[in-house]
């Protein structure tokens, strides 16, 4: 079912215009639409489609800057997100946790994506002075809580890998039967690897949706974007151990990287909620 005309108009206004201007335009359109509002068919005829109404009001340069910022933030989630998937950019996946470094020696690529994505979200959606104080949207709290639980689960796996690094987990890892490593992956560990690999799809969708909500609803939705990026990197960090051809070298990776990802992610999420 189509949303009411004013709702669609509000979404387009908040997407295409800076917040202050969008509020101003919407105030004017509430006047124009009338109270009670004219029927939607009449509004479509007299005013045009919501997107067409807002488009001439947007200043091209400002709108393009916003689109560029959106592409950068989405790219920081999507490029690493698709890298381990079939047909994904293998060089990105290869460099994601490779400490040989991509641009700076010793700095793996995941840090670039996290730093750029989180910093851009924090700067672009920074609080404005004139902004009224409102309570945190309930959906943001619920999603963040669920993501924190998942983060703890991935952390636990990462921790167990570090505790029992020996190639053969089977004897010691009674607590985690899926992590049985005997030469080629066992069926169960293979399932876990697939789960970690494909976890990026819902996290990418959630992250992009959060960016859209941060623009059109409440800027604190950026916290969900930051947390999705963090969770995805944590899942990939563990996945990189599963897919490494050099098992003895791979096991040393999770703990330091997990700590880095978690610290950056949690600080970023906390700052995003301010």
């Amino acid at each position: 079912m189509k949303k009411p005309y004013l709702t669609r108009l509000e979404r387009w206004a908040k997407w295409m215009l800076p917040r202050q201007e969008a509020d101003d335009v919407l105030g004017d359109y509430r006047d124009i639409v009338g109270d009670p509002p004219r029927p939607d068919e009449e509004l479509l005829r007299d005013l045009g489609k919501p997107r067409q109404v807002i488009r001439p009001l947007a200043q091209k340069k400002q709108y393009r800057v916003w689109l560029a910022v959106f592409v950068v933030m989405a790219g920081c989630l999507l490029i690493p997100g698709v890298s381990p998937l079939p047909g994904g950019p293998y060089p990105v996946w290869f460099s994601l946790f490779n400490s040989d470094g991509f641009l700076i020696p010793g700095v793996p690529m995941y840090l670039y994506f996290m730093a750029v994505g989180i910093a851009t979200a924090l700067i672009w959606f920074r609080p404005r002075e004139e902004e009224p104080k409102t309570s945190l949207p309930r959906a943001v709290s619920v999603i963040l809580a669920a993501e924190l639980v998942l983060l703890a689960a991935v952390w636990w796996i990462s921790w167990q890998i570090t505790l029992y690094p020996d190639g053969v987990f089977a004897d010691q890892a009674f607590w985690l039967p899926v992590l049985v490593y005997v030469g080629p992956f066992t069926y169960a560990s293979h399932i876990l690897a697939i789960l970690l690999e494909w976890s990026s799809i819902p996290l990418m969708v959630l992250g992009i949706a959060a960016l859209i909500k941060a623009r059109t609803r409440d800027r604190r939705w950026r916290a969900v974007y930051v947390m999705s990026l963090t969770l995805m990197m944590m899942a990939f960090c563990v996945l990189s151990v599963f897919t490494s051809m050099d098992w003895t070298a791979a096991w040393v990776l999770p703990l330091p990287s997990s700590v880095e990802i978690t610290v950056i992610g949690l600080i970023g999420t906390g700052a995003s909620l301010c």
Partner: protein
Amino acid sequence: MLKKDLIELCLLHLLSQGDQYGYELLRRLHDTFPDTQESAVYALLRGLCRDGCSEQYTGGASGGPARKYYHLTDKGLAQYAALLKQWQALCSALAALGLQ
């Protein structure tokens, strides 16, 4: 002179007669140009504000919510004079062709 310029001229003309309530301004122009959508007129009105040709302020309405009024600036007056001159030149050119 494009239709857009003509509508802009009409907006400036109405504003030159005194401060106007935004919605009323749109209704009047929509009545004059019924095939032009109100949103297009509104975009022109906001464009005038952005260019500094008009300013908006909120004024009280008796018993109702606050209304937004538009006021012509000096820059707007100059723009009005320029567009009026163009319009008059166009009218003269058309009259010279025998088109009244």
